[in-house]
C-alpha cells in the first residue's frame, strides 16, 4: 500500500494540496475525484514522486511472494521505487518515433537496465496482449490515434510489473467507447493481475461504475472517501463540486445527474 502522510504542496504562495493523509490500498481500483484545481493530480503525482511535497512523506509498502519491501518514495533510490510504483501523467506526450513494442519494452528498464531477458520479453508480450496492442506493436507512436497511443503508454507502465499503478486522467481525450474500454481494461488489471490501480477521473459516473473506492478532494483536502455508494451521494457531491447533483441508482450503480 501507499501511505501518504501529512503531505502539503504550494506553488509559489498558493497552497494547492494538504495537509493530506491518505492510504492507497494494495489491490482494487481507487478513483480520485474533485473539481478542477482541487489538487487531485498533485496528490497522485506526489504519491508517484513526479513532484516533491513541501512537507510530509509518502511510503510504499509491498508484501508479496517476493518478500516485503518498504520504501520512502521520495528518498529511496528512484530505480528501486520504479519496481514498486508506476505512474503515468497524461498531458503532453512528446511523440517520439518509437514503435509500440519499443515503448513498452522501456517499461522493463527498471528491471533490465536496457538488456532484455526472456522474463522481460514475456512481460512485454503480456502487456501488449492485455491492452490489445499485439497487432499494432510494430507501428510508430506517431502513426497511432490518441486512444491507441494512450493504451501504448498504459501498456508500458503495466510491463513495469509494479504492484501500484497510478494514472493521472487516463480517460482524458477519449470518446465514450474508448473510455469504457480503458476502464474495463483497468478493472481486469486489478482483478486478474492483482495490481492496485489508482487514477484521477473527471467523470464521477465512471468512478462510481468501476471503482472499489473513491476519494473526493476539494481545496487540497480529502473531503470524503469510501465505496461508490458512500461517496456518490447527493449531499456529498454537492459539497465536493459546489453544484446541485441528483443521484439515481441505475443498473445497481449510483449515478449522478448534474446536467441541469
Amino acid at each position, binding site marked *: 500500500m501507499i501511505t501518504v502522510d501529512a503531505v502539503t504542496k504550494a506553488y509559489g504562495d498558493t497552497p494547492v494540496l494538504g495537509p493530506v493523509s491518505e492510504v492507497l490500498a494494495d489491490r482494487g481500483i481507487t478513483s480520485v475525484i474533485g473539481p478542477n484545481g482541487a489538487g487531485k493530480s498533485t496528490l497522485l503525482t506526489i504519491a*508517484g*514522486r*513526479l513532484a516533491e511535497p513541501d512537507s510530509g512523506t509518502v511510503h510504499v509498502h509491498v508484501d508479496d511472494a517476493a518478500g516485503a519491501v518498504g520504501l520512502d518514495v521520495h528518498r529511496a*533510490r*528512484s*530505480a*528501486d*521505487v*520504479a*519496481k514498486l510504483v*508506476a*505512474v*503515468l*501523467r497524461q498531458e*503532453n*506526450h*512528446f*511523440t*517520439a*518515433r*518509437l*514503435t509500440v513494442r*519499443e*515503448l513498452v519494452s*522501456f*517499461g522493463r*528498464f*527498471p528491471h533490465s*537496465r*536496457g538488456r532484455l531477458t526472456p522474463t522481460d520479453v514475456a512481460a512485454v508480450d503480456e502487456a501488449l496482449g492485455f491492452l490489445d496492442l499485439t497487432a499494432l506493436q510494430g507501428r*510508430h507512436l506517431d502513426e497511432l490515434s490518441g486512444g491507441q497511443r494512450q493504451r501504448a503508454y498504459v501498456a*508500458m*507502465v503495466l510491463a*513495469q510489473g509494479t504492484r501500484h499503478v497510478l494514472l493521472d486522467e487516463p480517460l482524458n481525450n477519449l470518446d465514450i467507447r474508448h473510455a469504457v474500454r480503458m476502464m474495463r481494461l483497468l478493472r481486469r488489471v486489478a482483478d486478474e493481475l492483482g495490481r492496485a490501480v489508482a487514477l484521477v477521473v473527471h467523470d464521477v459516473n465512471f468512478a462510481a461504475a468501476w471503482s472499489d473506492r473513491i476519494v473526493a478532494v476539494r481545496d487540497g483536502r480529502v473531503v470524503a472517501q469510501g465505496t461508490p455508494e458512500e461517496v456518490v451521494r447527493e449531499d456529498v457531491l454537492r459539497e465536493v463540486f459546489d453544484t446541485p447533483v441528483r443521484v439515481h441508482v441505475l443498473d445497481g450503480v449510483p449515478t449522478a445527474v448534474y446536467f441541469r
Partner: protein
Amino acid sequence: MLALVALSLAVGGYDITLETFLHDEKAREMFFISRVPRTLALVLAAAAMGVSGVVMQVLVQNKFVEPTTTGSSQWAALGIVGLAVVHPGAPTIVRMVVASLLALVGTLVFLGVLRRVSLRSSVVVPLVGIMLGSVVGAVTTYLASDNDLLQMLASWRSGGFNDIVRGRYEPLWIVGLVVVAVYVTADRFTIAGLGRDVATNLGLHHGRVVFTGTAMVALATGVTTVVVGFVPFLGLVVPNVVSLLRGDDVRRNLPWVVLASVALMVVCDLVGRTVVFPLEVPASVVLGAVGATAFVVLVLRRKGSLRG
C-alpha cells in the same frame, strides 16, 4: 562506406597508386603521414558530430538542434581564441579541455534560456541557439581581430581536413570513446527523450541524464573544434534522415547514424578535394551547402507539426 573510405585514401595531391604504394618507399610514407590520418580524422569527426546531433535532438526533444545550432561549437571556438590570446603556446590537451568546458557552458546556457522561453515551437528552438551562437561568434571575432588571430579563426570556421597529418589527428580518438560511451548508455537518452515524467517513472534522474549527455556532446564538440574546426549541419541532416527511416530508438539507430555520417562526410571531403583539384574546398563548406539545403527542406516538411 568502406569503398568511400578506400577512395578517400586513394585521392590526394600526391600521386599514390596501389603499385607505387607497394614499391615506392616515399609514396608509402606519404600515405601514412597524410592520407591515413586525414581519412581517420574524417571518420572520427563525422561520427562525433552525427552522434552529438542525435543526443542533442533526443534530450531537447527537437529535431533541429545539433552542436552548431545550439551555439556549442561557437562557444568552443571562443574558448580556443580566448586561450590563444591569454596563453598563446598552450598545448593541445589544454586547448581541448578549455574548448570542451566552454562548449558545455554554452550548451547549458542554451538549455537554460530554452527553459525560460515559453514559445517552444520546433523552429524557435534552433533559432534561439543560432542567435546565441551568433552573439558568441561576434565576441570571438572581436577578440580575434583585436589580437591578429582572424586568419586562424577563418580557417576553423571553414573546418577543413587539408592540414590533418600524423601527430594532429590523434586527439580525435577521444571522440571515438565518446561515441562508444553514448552507445552503451543509449537507452537512458531515449527514455529521457520521452520526457521528465516518463524518465522519473522508470527510475532515472532526468536532470542527471541530460547533464551527462550534454557533457558528452560538449567533449565531442570541443575536441572536434580544436582539431578540425566547425563541422556544420552533419549532426542535423543524418540523424533526421535516420529518424525518418528507422524511428527514434537511439541504440538501434546509432550504428546507422555513424555509418551515414561518415559516408556523407567522406563524400563531401572528396567533392571538396576534386572539384578544384589540385586545390581544395574545405569539406565543411561543401557540407554547409548540402546541410543548409537539407535544413530548409526539413523545416518545410515539418512545418505542420508544432513540436517537431
